[in-house]
């Protein structure tokens, strides 16, 4: 737990003290303008689908706790919109994913996601391994080579 807390503090302090370095980033595919034109041309994806795209990192429909990546379920609507807009406009740009992934999302989509997440119940999931019935075959048994992550 301590490790994750420290990492989280590192992220926060990094956001404050470091500038985003974008010198050799590679951007491609649609331009932002073309992206927004497509968004206008077709009906908006459902709030459920938009929110579900966050699941792989933030836990099922935003519900994952106890990790570096924060939960979204139960988040106040205005707070969600504010944070997303800060990422999108570069005001709170970060260097991992959010400063990038928010760029092509429309304001309407952000509002729809905010409303969806505000209605979800945050579920405190355990960090414990959930699959206690895993049978480890003999060939798969090994020792962990624990490396020093430098933050513990």
């Amino acid at each position: 737990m301590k490790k994750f807390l420290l990492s989280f503090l590192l992220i926060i302090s990094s956001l404050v003290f470091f500038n985003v370095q974008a010198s050799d980033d590679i951007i491609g595919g649609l331009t932002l303008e073309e992206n927004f034109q497509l968004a206008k041309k077709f009906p908006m994806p459902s709030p459920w689908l938009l929110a579900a795209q966050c699941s792989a990192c933030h836990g099922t429909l935003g519900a994952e706790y106890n990790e570096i990546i924060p939960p979204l379920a139960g988040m106040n609507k205005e707070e969600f919109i504010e944070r997303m807009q800060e990422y999108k406009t570069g005001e709170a740009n970060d260097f991992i994913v959010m400063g990038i992934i928010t760029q092509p999302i429309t304001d309407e989509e952000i509002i729809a996601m905010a409303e969806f997440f505000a209605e979800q119940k945050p579920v405190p999931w355990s960090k414990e391994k959930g699959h206690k019935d895993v049978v480890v075959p003999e060939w798969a048994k090994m020792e962990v080579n624990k490396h020093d992550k430098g933050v513990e």
Partner: protein
Amino acid sequence: MNNQNHNKKDGLSRRQMLKLLGASALTYGLLGASTKAFSNTAPHIVIVGGGIGGAAAAKYLRLLNAEVKITVIEPNSQYIFCPGSNEVIPGWVTLEDLMVTYTTLKTRYKVNVIHDKATTIDYDKKQVKLEKGDVLSYHKLIVSPGPTHGYHAIEGFSKELADGDFPAAYDAGRQTMNLRNQILAMKKGGTVIIAPPENDYRCPPAPYERASFVAAMLKENNPTGKILILDAKDEFVLSNNYIPYWEKTFGYGTDNSMIEWVQKKKGGEVVKLDASNHAVVTADGQTHKGDVINIIPPEAAGQFALKNDLADDRWCPVEFQDFSSTRHKDVYVIGDSVDGSPMPKTGYIASNQARVVVQAINDELHGREVGTPFIVNDCVAMAGHDYGMALSTTFRYAGKGERLKDLYYVQGLETNPAKQLIRQQVAENWQRTFRKDIFE
């Protein structure tokens, strides 16, 4: 939008579907999932493949719909996550860390999991036959079989050799462990050959992440050991991070480099394995001896998809609004088997394709217009346990018959050590969260 076209190819009319669903079958949350047996008239959604795509489809369909009957057909009783499996090679994580069972899917999400192998689809009868003789009727069939590893595309290579002395290790499992053990046991100053495939293949940065991890391993245990990457491509994604990392950490580009990368145009493409001499032959006729040989063969759609006429040639074409097959109706294809360019073949993508499909199926069951797809991909990769990176892409719908349109952003080299470390921590965090998202 496109709803008329969409319904035209459905075997069941919307009215029939609604009738099957029952008047009371409004979508409600998981808490409403009944413990009673599913009604005989409940629509039956059958999913072939219990990997990331198939398991995500089963779970997320249940989150949307408490009434449908869901069956997953998967031969293995446990699944080993591929994301994170490169870390098994240096021993930073264990295979056990990556193992999950289907118990949560069965008990919490009321999914019927049959541990058997699906063999053939009878498209007229809308039935899937299983190896042990069972025949399942479906209303909708989701096909997520993972890729076929084309061992035979490399002369002299085979699945038997990959299971033996020449592990490809491109599905997490026994070959991964075998590759780890071979590298640990390699003679001092020996050479590990890694041969990445041509495009497209699962997890594009993985062969290069693997090379980085093996270099870290050698640096610790066998510092005069070398890695020779013989590539069937001229470039690779995230090289703007890997190459500078290799320069800084492994002397890349110098005479003493631990890693040498040979592009296809410089003669890198491996065309033959000479197993008895423990060597590979490249397209330019050169022979390279390796103490450990890790050929990652080219890929195609999964065998089940190929055998059941779902692929045009190598991959399965789909309509991107709902990932329905353009070759057979009431069948959807997701994951590595899809002809999905510009979407890369990643577990992340497979899970998000699954969410699009189950929403579309659920919309149809409820007689609603099928929604617009939207897909996010974040490739989080590592170069070492002190350096992480990310590639983020969004995919928007561009109309019927059109491919999804991407907008991608590959992060550049990160020189701040604190930020490098945080990105690495996030990559590890993501792997844990992702495993829980799909299987818990």
